[in-house]
């Protein structure tokens, strides 16, 4: 929700504010999951033991697996616990029929993984022009190579990315700028069901992240032959300190290479600055993004980069546990961030909530990024213990006021439902020019939040076609300039354990404006498109 007050005169300001409010008010999200034919029901495990495993699942993805220009849906599922229990749950793939409905194609596509699923990442790792799916599981991950004919094959073991740890989020990135998508996998805890013992204590038997050591994250370098090599240590991103849940990738220091941020639960977060030589440096302390405003580690769940103030620098949001505010870090340049959660107005609302999936997105296409957070407590019985909290919580949309602050725009915009949400994916599944949202709700059906009214104003959709194996242009930086310059980067890894649309969608400030689009590809080359025609998706090739 952008407000412009260029002349500073009260009358004009009032008019502009009214106009902005009207635009935001015209946007409404409608949960169309059921009518769209998505009959998936999430299985949290139902062990009755209160395994910590049952608190974090699961994520989801928007991806165009069949290359028909329509976003399909991948839903990650838990499974019956303990693993020996009879299980009927599996991940699911829904093909977009192009008419607002979806068809379950899980079986024919062969992507119905039955491990205890946490999240997914998407990308064309083998450069064959179609989107592959990496599934993060408790204990063993899957890499579904897209066969290009509507089917997939799990090649995780052969590719060397099966990863025996409890993985949460994954991100396909070209960290070494060799044109191939590498893979960063955030791992959570060294927890084994076989060794489980109740943690006891006055609050019951639930164990928290503090009861288990962390599991180190892994960076896999793409060898270009269908296999990956674990380069975690040599790249400088090994740490036994983390308990990773969310991963965000972006070039926060604008030096042309992708940096990696990890939201850790119960321990400090990580910001790995890419040195440009295949190695990273942990700059978390210096950058000021590892802790709360008071210098305390928090329960980090999800993370996302985005330039919410249109200053050309990627800012950062981190969703956190209850009684911690979600951290909004403004990129001040020079490698420094400041925590503006309180002054930007996102702190107070988030305090009682447990935040998970998140993203900066321009829901009303007014040329500034709003902020979505999926919420839900992890303790099913929390309300009996804490009168300020509930297991089911509302998802929240913070509307950007165009002046560096946010106001809540949730309930009146169709986000009044309360569920215990986890991962969220973002993309324009109906190709109407506004961003829709897919949310996984634990133990329930997902929400497919169709954005109605977001495309009333002008917009521009951009599909990048990279040279070589990185066909989707992952890591490219795109600026769209009208009166204002907006900056975005291409990534599918956003928020928590989920994969989003690789296409970019820009709201245009003025009706009828003809923006200039500039692309800085991860190879370093640039492409400029003058006077792009709005209200359509355009394709830009490297």
């Amino acid at each position, binding site marked *: 929700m952008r407000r412009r007050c260029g002349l500073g005169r009260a009358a004009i300001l009032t008019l502009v504010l009214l106009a902005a409010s009207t635009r935001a008010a015209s946007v409404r999200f409608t949960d169309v999951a059921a009518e769209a034919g998505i009959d998936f029901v999430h299985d949290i495990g139902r062990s009755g033991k209160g395994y910590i495993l049952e608190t974090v699942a699961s994520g989801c993805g928007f991806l165009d697996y069949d290359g028909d220009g329509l976003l399909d849906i991948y839903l990650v599922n838990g499974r019956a616990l303990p693993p020996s229990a009879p299980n009927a749950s599996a991940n699911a793939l829904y093909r977009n029929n192009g008419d607002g409905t979806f068809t379950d194609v899980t079986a024919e596509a062969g992507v119905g993984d039955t491990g205890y699923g946490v999240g997914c990442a998407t990308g064309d790792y083998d450069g064959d022009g179609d989107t592959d799916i990496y599934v993060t599981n408790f204990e063993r991950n899957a890499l579904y190579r897209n066969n290009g004919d509507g089917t997939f094959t799990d090649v995780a073991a052969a590719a060397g990315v099966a990863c025996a740890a409890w993985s949460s989020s994954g991100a396909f990135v070209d960290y070494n700028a060799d044109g191939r998508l590498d893979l960063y996998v955030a791992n959570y805890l060294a927890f084994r069901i076989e060794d489980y013992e109740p*943690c006891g204590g006055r609050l019951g038997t639930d164990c928290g992240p503090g009861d288990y050591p962390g599991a180190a994250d892994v960076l896999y370098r793409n060898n270009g032959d269908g296999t990956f090599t674990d380069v975690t240590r040599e790249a400088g991103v090994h740490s036994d300190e983390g308990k990773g849940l969310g991963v965000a990738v972006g070039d926060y220091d604008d030096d042309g290479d992708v940096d990696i941020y990890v939201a850790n639960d119960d321990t400090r977060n990580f910001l790995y600055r890419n040195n440009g030589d295949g190695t990273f440096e942990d700059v978390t302390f210096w950058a*000021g993004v590892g802790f709360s405003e*008071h210098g305390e*580690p928090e329960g980090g769940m999800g993370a996302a980069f985005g330039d919410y103030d249109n200053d050309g620098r990627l800012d950062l949001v981190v969703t956190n546990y209850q009684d911690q505010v979600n951290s909004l870090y403004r990129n001040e340049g020079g490698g420094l961030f400041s925590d503006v959660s309180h002054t930007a107005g996102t702190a107070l609302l988030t305090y*009682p909530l447990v935040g998970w999936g998140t993203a900066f997105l321009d829901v009303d296409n007014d040329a500034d990024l709003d902020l979505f957070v999926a919420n839900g407590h992890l303790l099913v019985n929390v309300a009996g213990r804490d*009168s300020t909290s509930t297991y089911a919580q509302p998802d929240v949309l913070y509307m950007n006021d165009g002046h560096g602050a946010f106001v809540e725009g949730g309930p009146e915009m169709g986000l009044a439902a309360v569920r215990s949400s986890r991962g969220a994916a973002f993309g324009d599944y109906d190709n109407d020019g506004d961003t829709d949202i897919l949310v996984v709700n634990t133990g329930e059906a997902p929400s497919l939040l169709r954005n109605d009214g977001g495309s009333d104003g002008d917009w521009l959709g951009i599909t990048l076609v990279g040279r070589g194996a990185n066909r989707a242009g992952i890591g490219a930086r795109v600026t769209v300039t009208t009166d204002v310059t907006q900056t975005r980067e291409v990534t599918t890894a956003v928020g928590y354990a989920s994969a989003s649309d690789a296409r970019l969608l820009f709201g245009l400030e003025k009706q009828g404006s003809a923006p200039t689009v500039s692309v800085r590809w991860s190879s370093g080359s640039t492409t400029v498109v003058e006077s792009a025609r709005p209200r359509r998706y355009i394709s830009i090739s490297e």
Partner: protein
Amino acid sequence: MSIGRTHAAALVVALAVWGGLTTWAGAQAAARETSTPLARGLAMYESGRMAEALIAFREAADGDTASPMPDFGVGIVCAALGWLDRAEDALEGALSKRPAFPEAHDELGDILLRRREFRDAESHYRTAIALRPDYVEAHLGLGLTFATQRMFPEARHAYELALALDPSTSTAHRSLGEVHAWEGDLAAAISAYERALALEPGSVPALYGIGLVKLRQRVTDEAIETLERVVALDPQHKSGWHNLAKAYAASGRPELAESAMAEFEALHELDERLKPHLRTLEADPTDLPARYAITKEYLRAERMPDAIRELDRMLAIDPMFAPALDARVRIHLSLEEWSEAHVWAARLTRARPDNVMAFLYLGMSAGAVGAVDEAVGAYRRAIQLKPDEPTGYNNLAWLFYQNRMRLDEAETLAERAVGIEPKPAYLDTLSRVYEAQGRLAQALAAAARALAADPNNPAYRARHEALHTIEPGDGP
């Protein structure tokens, strides 16, 4: 920013009311004039000696089962030690004996608030206020209950009532500052913090609040100035260092930022090492190994007051817990706090009557406070317990030498110590005893051996040189 309140010694207030006294000073004076277990408990509580306070209050409870005060004392001590279950039981015991007991309601409110049982906490604070409308502490507790739930108008109202009763309540001003900061009224927050600071100069929480708000306002230089005061007053203020580092970085002073960040990192790392043990204590506050591990971390970080606090907590759980007694003695010895060391060493010998180190500590500390006979007895016991341990011989020889007594025996003892282990310190003792006995050649030889064994020790060098200058026959 966290919302907290300073808890005054409500027990003293309660005793004042109980005893028909109306002033704080009167209550303190009355308590000190008596030697009852209750008064002892109060004195120990006031001086932060929770283990002894708990023992005294329990003794008081055994002696007077009808009075609610010993239960209240146990409750307040247990609350201070973090044993919320026990504290709750004790306070409820006090209330069963005297339902119209505002301090007990207030304390119970505090415990329930810590447990996030907000409705019950509010109920107890309201009862306390109904019983005593001018009870400032209860108003503050009520305010904090609301503030924790982010019910800011209600919190503000409670704090303002507290201030109406006593405008000099700095905690209420500070708490109002925190509420204003949460509500985004940064100017009002600063004003409230400054009022708190005027009432309580050097208040670290108020200063930190101002520093943080200045940082949010991007008034970086003023933030730096304030946060520098925070860490000067409290070098362990992790949040202060964190924000100071950020402020330095924002103001383009990278070297200062790095330095402040290093301080922050060290404190963060200590917290990380403590975390698993604290987690254990969350489930069981009486877990002694966890508390002992925390103590060791504090000792490693040279945070003696924190270490002593943890030791006190251990000793409140088990007054004869030898590792805690041992650590307590060593801390006081290292700080040359001989009287304290003497007290704790005596306890350690009772807890570990067969432990040679306990008697060595007792010997050292007793000798230092002039209790020579006790020191001699302790060293003899140490030698008896472990005849091949040289320290007892050496220390006893040194004690005799220092007091110029039993020098013949001292010589034998020192020779024995050196015979077992020719450590420089033992050679130095032997040299001094020889000198005191007038055997200068032997004294010089022993001093030379000490210096040879530890050539960089300036004391041995000086002594060796001094012995060279003494003419034969100059001895005593």
